[in-house]
């Protein structure tokens, strides 16, 4: 039988850890969306060389194991003189990992928008920048929400990897509790439920915005 009392006893700790996971996921996704928009904008308005650099970045974030990338950021940041605590190091790492995906999401959305609109904008006198801000982005954001929701799920899952750099998120706390009490099933079950809850809430919010943003 499950030890329900024990599950309730550890609940405050698990909830606090879930909150950390939620914060990290939310911040990381927000930053990766901003980075994705900025990089895709740079890619679309720049020449070959810049595009190759961005391509390399995308291939790197997609090709290198996320655990390795997190370690690189963890050790690289202090090396270049930036000292963040574990929490913010985790956010930086997940933001860059996410950006590799959001750049591609936004780039594909742009490619799917009829090029004629930008030509019309150009003749009306819009600069490339104005074309992006007023014509492309409003449409891209709407079209990108479904893949962004998938990315959101990936970020929540990837946040578990931050346990290796001792961020007090859900997976780390789950492991701590298991080793403190030598209880496994109850802790795993509770953490699993928490992850599912977090993802459901975030997906719900995202779907809400999808409906709100009618073309």
């Amino acid at each position, binding site marked *: 039988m499950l030890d329900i009392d024990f599950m309730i006893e550890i609940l405050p700790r698990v909830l606090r850890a879930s909150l950390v996971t939620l914060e990290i996921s939310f911040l990381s996704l927000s930053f990766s969306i901003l980075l994705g928009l900025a990089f895709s904008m740079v890619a679309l308005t720049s020449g070959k060389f810049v595009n190759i650099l961005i391509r390399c970045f995308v291939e790197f974030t997609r090709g290198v194991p996320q655990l390795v990338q997190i370690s690189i950021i963890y050790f690289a940041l202090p090396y270049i003189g930036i000292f963040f605590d574990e929490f913010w190091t985790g956010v930086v790492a997940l933001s860059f990992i996410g950006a590799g995906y959001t750049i591609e999401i936004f780039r594909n959305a742009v490619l799917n928008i*009829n090029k*004629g*609109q930008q*030509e*019309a*904008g*150009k*003749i*009306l*006198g*819009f600069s490339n920048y*104005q074309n992006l801000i*007023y*014509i492309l982005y*409003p*449409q891209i954001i*709407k079209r990108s929400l479904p893949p962004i929701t998938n990315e959101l799920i990936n970020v929540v899952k990837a946040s578990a990897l931050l346990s290796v750099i001792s961020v007090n998120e859900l997976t780390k706390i789950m492991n701590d509790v298991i080793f403190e009490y030598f209880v496994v099933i109850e802790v795993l079950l509770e953490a699993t439920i928490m992850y599912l809850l977090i993802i459901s809430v975030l997906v719900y919010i995202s779907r809400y915005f999808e409906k709100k943003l009618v*073309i």
Partner: protein
Amino acid sequence: MPNILSIKNLNVFYEKFHAVKDIDLSLNEGEIFVICGPSGSGKSTLIRAIAGLEKPKSGEILINNKAMNEKEVLNKNIFGMVFQQFNLFPHLSILENITLPLMKVKKISKSESIEIAHGVLSKVKILDQKDKHPSKLSGGQQQRCAIARSLAMNPKIMLFDEPTSALDPEMINEVLDVMTDLASAGMTMIIVTHEMGFAKKIANKIILMDNGEIIESNTPNNFFNNPETERTKSFLNQVLQH
């Protein structure tokens, strides 16, 4: 009327492909210039190069006898352009499609932009549709909105690239009527079209293009009744049969 547009020795390439070859043409204020020709003859390329959408390899474009490059042409809103596919902004209402460029490019205040938009929308007779999104309008209405959007920017010359080719037959006339109104109001226009009846009525000059070259340049009367080249005759035979 004074000369408004002269094109000298215009050449446009796509990579190695020579799409527009040594084109010369000249247009006076208020004139209507019609370009026709078979598919792939370079009509769109020519009109796009004039508009500043394609960079010519060589040649000159003079506006009021002053040479201008693509950047200047675009920055000064010399041309308005109407496309086959309308190219409205789908995320904006009809009204916003027109006010956005006025506010962002011409830096005109919102209230004044709305006033201008109302003016051009009533000119093309779709003022009652102003709060809808483009996808809710018929093709003919969308194209008239595109014309209104161009007009609002107060261009010197209007360019039309097959403005009725994507329309259902019953909507073609409402767009051609708007263009006829514009012509009567004195607008200078360059029109690529397959509507030969319309071309005959509206044009001051008409050219036939083939393989990137101008095969014949004539008055509409001579073009249809007394063409100079065999190529024009066979082209007319083909299009008039349909």
